[in-house]
């Protein structure tokens, strides 16, 4: 990946010095070799601070939204970031001409805690960028691993077991809202949890408030989830959040036909927000 | 004679039992001040004043199903504390639905107070805007109650429209009749048929105009300022331009507050907590604090 990193630096410097973009979003190096962080480079001379290696665990696309409006912004985008770009465009968060996509095919990242492939990468369906202005590096194979193993496990549980599973999951939640802040679908200017006047979300910390938050967020992201898995990766308490997202993805496929959020397939508009007279209605 | 420097005390906290738990009080009087401002007099259930407090101090007023809000105490009587509340949000909306006889929660007093001791002998220039009235009113009433201790008193007060002027009775009937007390009122926008024939001006230019027309001096004066963020900023600049020393400008700040006792963390400006060491500061002190 060293060549890719060099090319990213060169391209970032060129784009910044030509004035084509006002910022380049990628990763910088932390104190330790296995720690990388989302880095926004604004000056060509800082392009050398960009790194790209197997420790770039964060899905950085959300930063785009903080910098659009300051001129065109370049994003170093793997499959996951590129799907997020499509998501933002579909959700009217930005327009295609506001972002310059430096596409980078991704072989998968390494979890510094275990030394193994990061979970969100092990489940990745799209390693190559689905949208890009230029591509750095050669396309990688798409193994399309089976990603519903955890959903299968939870589906096979009895009602009581499932209840216990979700109680344990949300019993650990500290409601730091990292999942929301990292999520490319969570783009509400004011989140329901902060609408104090309405008071949807209680401020107390307990399993009920956490479950309520988690479920509302899951439903609100609904068919827009791009399965980047960043919510689960960002969670400091290790909640298996993708179980819920994957369950939704699979249900949507079953009910409405193959569909993947983030403009991956040409399956038309988002199914949960499109009314069709032949929509399935067996649950009514 | 050299004037006594204005000294604002910042260490006035006192532990009065459980700091977070309110006492139950009864609403004994409600006055509709404007379309969105009401004043409330609160009394303990046994007919006493809820607490003694100094002008500028704060009280946390609550209506338990809805929430609690921190207000500057607008005045105290023999047997009541008075609050002036603008309907700006969820809790204040519900406070506005209270009736006389309803029981509410009140805790406090919190924070420091205006330097009425060190300001003795000075000409007092009070400046307030809109709902910035309560703390200024508390200090002004103190000065009027001890009229001989202070020099000339001027009060420059503005609100968006005539209807938004708070405490009209005090402004037009009570205070102008006090000895050597001059009340100057302006509105930002005159409205057709609202009966206002006075000045139409924002507070800062109006303050400068009054200062010139009345021939006021900064010589032995103390300015007291309270209002929203933009009034606050522009009037600070005007006062400095008029020649007030930063040490002679006294202000009171507002912030979102929860605990009232300098612990919960949100109302800090730099290392200082507005609810505990504040809300009263001199301009000289503010200038040394971060612009947080």
């Amino acid at each position, binding site marked *: 990946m060293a060549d890719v990193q060099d090319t990213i630096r060169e391209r970032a410097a060129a784009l910044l010095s030509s004035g084509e973009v006002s910022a380049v979003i990628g990763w910088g190096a932390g104190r330790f070799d296995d720690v990388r*962080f989302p880095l926004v480079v604004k000056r060509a001379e800082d392009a050398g601070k960009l790194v790209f290696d197997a420790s770039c665990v964060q899905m950085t696309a959300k930063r785009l939204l903080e910098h659009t409006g300051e001129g065109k912004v370049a994003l170093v985008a793997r499959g996951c970031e590129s799907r997020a770009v499509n998501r933002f465009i579909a959700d009217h968060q930005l327009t295609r001409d506001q972002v310059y996509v430096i596409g980078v095919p991704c072989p998968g990242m390494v979890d510094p805690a275990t030394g193994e492939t990061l979970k969100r990468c092990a489940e990745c369906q799209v390693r190559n960028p689905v949208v890009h202005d230029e591509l750095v590096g050669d396309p990688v194979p798409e193994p399309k691993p089976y990603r519903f193993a955890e959903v299968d496990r939870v589906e096979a549980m009895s009602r009581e077991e499932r209840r216990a599973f979700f109680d344990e999951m949300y019993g650990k939640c500290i409601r730091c809202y*990292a999942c929301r802040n990292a999520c490319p679908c969570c783009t509400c200017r004011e989140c329901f949890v902060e609408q104090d006047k309405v008071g949807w979300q209680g*401020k107390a910390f307990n399993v009920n408030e956490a479950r309520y938050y988690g479920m509302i967020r899951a439903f609100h992201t609904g068919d827009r989830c791009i399965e980047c898995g960043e919510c689960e*990766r960002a969670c400091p308490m290790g909640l298996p959040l993708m179980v819920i997202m994957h369950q939704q993805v699979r249900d949507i496929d079953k009910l409405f036909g193959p569909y993947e959020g983030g403009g991956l397939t040409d399956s038309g508009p988002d199914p949960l927000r499109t009314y069709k007279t032949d929509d399935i209605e067996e649950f009514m | 004679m050299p004037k006594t420097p204005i000294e604002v005390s910042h260490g006035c906290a006192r532990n009065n039992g459980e700091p977070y738990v309110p006492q139950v009080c009864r609403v004994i009087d409600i006055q509709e001040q404007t379309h969105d401002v009401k004043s409330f007099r609160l009394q303990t259930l046994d007919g006493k004043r809820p607490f003694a407090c100094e002008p500028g101090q704060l009280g946390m007023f609550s209506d338990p199903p809805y929430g*609690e809000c921190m207000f500057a105490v607008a005045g105290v009587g023999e047997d009541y504390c008075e609050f002036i509340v603008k309907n700006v949000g*969820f809790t204040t909306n519900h406070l506005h639905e209270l009736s006389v006889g309803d029981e509410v929660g009140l805790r406090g007093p919190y924070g420091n107070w205006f330097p009425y001791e060190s300001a003795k002998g000075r000409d007092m220039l009070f400046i307030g805007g809109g709902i910035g009235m309560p703390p200024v009113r508390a200090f002004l009433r103190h000065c009027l109650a001890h009229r001989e201790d202070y020099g000339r008193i001027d009060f420059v007060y503005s609100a968006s429209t005539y209807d938004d002027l708070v405490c009209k009775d005090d402004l037009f009937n009570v205070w102008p009749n006090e000895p050597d007390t001059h009340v100057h009122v302006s509105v930002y926008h005159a409205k057709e048929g609202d009966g206002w024939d006075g000045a139409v001006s924002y507070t800062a230019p109006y303050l400068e105009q009054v200062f010139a027309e009345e021939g006021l001096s900064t010589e032995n004066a103390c300015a007291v300022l309270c209002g929203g963020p933009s009034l606050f900023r522009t009037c600070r600049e005007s006062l400095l331009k008029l020649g007030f020393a930063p040490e002679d400008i006294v202000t009171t700040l507002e912030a979102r507050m929860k605990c009232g006792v300098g612990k919960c963390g*949100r*109302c800090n400006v*730099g290392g200082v907590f507005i609810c505990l060491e504040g809300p009263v500061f001199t301009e000289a002190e503010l200038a040394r604090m971060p612009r947080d």
Partner: protein
Amino acid sequence: MLLKKAKAGALLDAIAAKERLFVPADDRGTSRFVAYGAGVEPRFDLLNTKLPPKDLLFPATETLYRWSRDGADLAIDSAFAETDPFTVFGLRPCDMASVDRLDAVFLTKGYVDEFYQAKREAATFVVATCAHPGRACFCDSIAASPHEAPTADVLLEDAGEEWVVTPQTEKGASAVEAWKPYLEEGDAEPIKAACDLKVDMAAVPEKLKGMFDDPIWSDIGDQCLTCGTCTFVCPTCYCFNIDQDVREDEGKRFRCWDSCMFTDYTAMAGGHNPRASKESRVRQRFMHKLTYFNDRYDMNLCVGCGRCMRDCPAAVDISLIIDRIAASEPAQEKEAMAHA
């Protein structure tokens, strides 16, 4: 006096028979201080727990009072209660240093927080020193030491197979007296470890005073997600909210942990928010930790435990931030250079 690590279980059983006892332990894939009892395996090998021990003194949610309304009538009942004695066994020196900070906040500066005080007075803290500080540990250059904890009631100095037991307070002395049956006479050489990671704090609190408008805050803002992870895993972050739970005509008012990273933390009724930008919230957090708190209480609000660095989803690293502040030019010099 020595306590063989292998025999700690018997001592813990004895303490737990007398009063509540909290030990570091795994909890559903994370770790925290849990009540010792059946099925709880103490993890004295953990450097520090995922969640800090602060909730033992300052619970994440704590009822302050209950109220009920009947027409115009209102009743308010304080939820304050005395706390039975309890022991926290095996916390680390950094976490003990965090208790010193919480004490300063809740017990000084005019008001004593009775809810905190009741728990604090009931607590006996038994601190185990760190023989092998982790790579994110930097307590000894900011607030504490891996092998000391001056305010602990009892100090357990790690000597390999055993701990050297030293009572440091009256409370600690009576605790150790009661532990006698489980202790052994003898001497062992405590491991005096030092952290590899060091920060240079000397000039930081003063330098920060001139850095309100420094570009560092927008750089950190670009990196930070402004989630609340750092504030919730931090052993010293104490800022709280007061809110309520309403059930028709009755309810309770509680306080709960809050985070300066959240947008609604400083939003006022009417819409004005003095810290609306990410940059301003990030600045508040680090200014509070590294200079405001020092002004007020004469100590840093960071104890170098490394939790925020480990768990931050965006890998914000307070030690790197301290490095950058320490290396920055003082504001006046910068200004002078600009004018030169």
